[in-house]
């Protein structure tokens, strides 16, 4: 989905536009559903510009590039962006979790071994902002471009460098940032579509997760050893 030749603003408009077409063209795992299902109410309207609650244009482009690198469009699913992952990230970071809910935030703060867990004063919203800045500064230093303007191959290499701790982000912990990114992107891909990602339950169709209502009492013996395959249903389908 991300194309280095497109200017960033046009690209952001296109993120919503191309979604359904790519899904219909590429998804063989869930073909019928992607084409015929009514759009989730959480999906952006195809063709309309995507409006974000908290992400800046630079941040949205970054998340989109990461989502499409981690979840590339292929025969199994549309790209991460087309699955709604960027919308998901935006809503999560704009909400209570992004604001530091259910986190102990009192100081003092000290650098610590990974086994002690997250030890920074930043909320997730602030942490992702800092991580995007640091990553873009790093790719600009090495290739003159922000992360989202790199080619698909270069983006893959950059993420691998972050993942393995080999990327030099100066004073910022790139590996910790990568783990947070991977978690958030996967949550967006696999959570209930009510949160703005996993459009049309695309990942649930992909793996064969039935979603709701999950009342299997009378099925557990019948399907022992047999694949239970149904059209997945989400929270919105029962609301």
């Amino acid at each position, binding site marked *: 989905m991300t194309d280095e030749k497109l200017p960033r603003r046009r690209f952001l408009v296109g993120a919503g536009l191309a979604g359904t077409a790519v899904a219909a063209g590429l998804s063989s*795992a869930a073909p019928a559903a992607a084409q015929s299902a009514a759009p989730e109410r959480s999906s952006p309207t195809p063709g309309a510009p995507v409006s974000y609650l908290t992400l800046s244009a630079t941040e949205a482009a970054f998340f989109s590039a990461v989502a499409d690198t981690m979840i590339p469009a292929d025969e199994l699913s549309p790209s991460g962006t087309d699955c709604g992952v960027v919308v998901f990230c935006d809503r999560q970071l704009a909400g209570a979790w992004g604001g530091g809910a259910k986190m102990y935030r009192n100081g003092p703060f000290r650098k610590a071994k990974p086994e*002690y867990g997250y030890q920074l004063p930043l909320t997730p919203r602030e942490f992702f902002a800092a991580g995007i800045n640091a990553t873009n500064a790093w790719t600009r230093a090495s290739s003159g471009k922000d992360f989202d303007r790199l080619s698909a191959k270069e983006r893959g290499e950059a993420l691998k460098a972050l993942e393995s701790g080999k990327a030099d982000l100066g004073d910022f912990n790139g590996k910790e940032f990568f783990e947070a990114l991977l978690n958030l992107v996967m949550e967006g891909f*696999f959570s*209930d579509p009510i949160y703005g990602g996993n459009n049309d339950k695309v990942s649930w169709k*992909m*793996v064969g997760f039935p979603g709701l209502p999950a009342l299997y009492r009378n099925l557990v013996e019948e399907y022992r050893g047999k694949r239970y395959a149904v059209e997945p249903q989400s*929270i919105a389908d029962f609301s």
Partner: protein
Amino acid sequence: MATRLKEVDAVMVGMGWTGSIMARELTKAGLVVAGLERGPDVKPSEQFALPAVRDELRFSRRLDLIQDPQMETLTFRHRPSESALPMRRMGSFLPGDGVGGAANHWGGHTWRYLPTDHRVRTHLTDRYGSSAIPEDMTIQDWAMTYDELEPYYDKFEKLCGVAGKAGNLRGQKIDGGNVFEGPRSNEYPTPPLHQNLSGVLFDKAVRELGYHPFPRPASNCSRPYVNIEGLSLGACQYCGFCDKNGCEANAKAGPHICILPKLRADPKFSLRTNAWVSRLTYDKQAKRVTGVVFTDTRNGEEYEQPAGIVVLSAYVFGNISLLLHSRIGEQYDPVTQKGTVGKNYCYQLSRMGVNMFFDDKYFNPFMGAPGTQMVIDDFNADNFDHAGLGFVGGAIIACGHGDGRPIGYRPTPPGTPRWGSAWKKAVVENYQRALNISLSGSNYANRYHYLDLDPTYRDQLGRPLLRLTYNFTENDYKLSEYCMQKAVEIGRAMKPKVMGDPRLRRGDYDIVPYQSTHNTGGTVMGTDPKTSVVNRYLQSWDASNLFIMGASTFPQQVAYNPTGPVGALAYWSSEAIINKYLKNPGPLVHS
């Protein structure tokens, strides 16, 4: 100045399992009881209803039912020489929040501890000699035997409608149940849940290897059940969303369905939520507590609740910190080994296991419950000969499906990348075809594992946070290696296409990923006030009208989930209060 409320006969600090059981038994005996709960009230019919209850992000990732660490958390370090840092997000363990406590989001595994678990130091010394127990391993016998506690285990099972299969009925060993368990007076209240293909394959493999599989006992009622309170429980739906979530089917036992409807209707009981107890009022001279002080989090005001009996029924950490904040008892010191409060903190060896990948099987991993597992106890506790092995204790080895929620459950074979097209392909290929053998190992007490108050970090009330000093030991690593070999041997017998890499217990304890909410110790039971905080009736040695519930009283932790004995001990202690203490208030055991 705190507003002084009208005195009650007894006050509960925390309204989870133990506060609910104790309040029910004491009101039945005629006492006026106040139940204080720091969190909100919980209404299962609204909050655990379909469709919202089937939300992996909300409950498993954002931890909707879990204690807020900003309110109160603990600090952590691996060893006494280090400075501790706060656990800023809940991770390794997940205490509950609100009425019902952790029973709102538990999985329901309900065990009885083995007869040898109740007298582990004596048993190991008798069998292997005292040199088999390392000098720093501060394990202690429980203060009552299995046989003494059996009727109370039985009662708690009948409260919950536990699904399972007896392996030892009044001394008669029964194939298909756990033949290592202590004698039971009764069969489980409801039959075991149906197993998935995973349980069936495991059962066959371990039988061929000569082991003794049985269905995991769980408070997921396998059919509708009326409990000893006359309250109705529903049948488990095998929804695959059980742990960390509430239950819409009323099949997972908890105070809300098993006790609270009776308690709420009793005029002798009053429930007060948003009541955060900051300390107990203590008359050290008289060795009595006079009540509790709490902050109402809805108005910020402080209140004093005088009470004839105080019951600490919070989570493990809450019980310990309240003793320390109230200066009841002596803080344990790992150097001198004097003092008792905070001593013998133990955890569990969890997250161990091995994945297997098949190309010809469909497991439907989303279909199941915590009780859809087969288990062997052959390598647990002292059920096998430890001579020459260099460790004591053991692990249960289990196999089943029932938590295939896709944010958390995406097994892939070794060497698979974690993102990208190759990752996606592996997830799709293996979602239906992967199987996990899991281990849960015992964790025996160590002299240097303890809790005290942190010198730096504070909670929302301005009190010092509890500080945890804890790490794994040589015994843990050896136990993990040995039991993992057995698990891998079983895995191979199940003939997968690919075996995953064993997830062993190596290196330092990591407080980030979820392991188990099976923290124990810190206010341990015993027969000697020099080495324990409470006596055999869970009565404080330092205040005769103070009773301390829950797993904080366990001297060490076994491989099982702790809720079975937590419930049994609450019944046992309540009976001692009613039949002994009320007739003659004062110490029930003389040291």
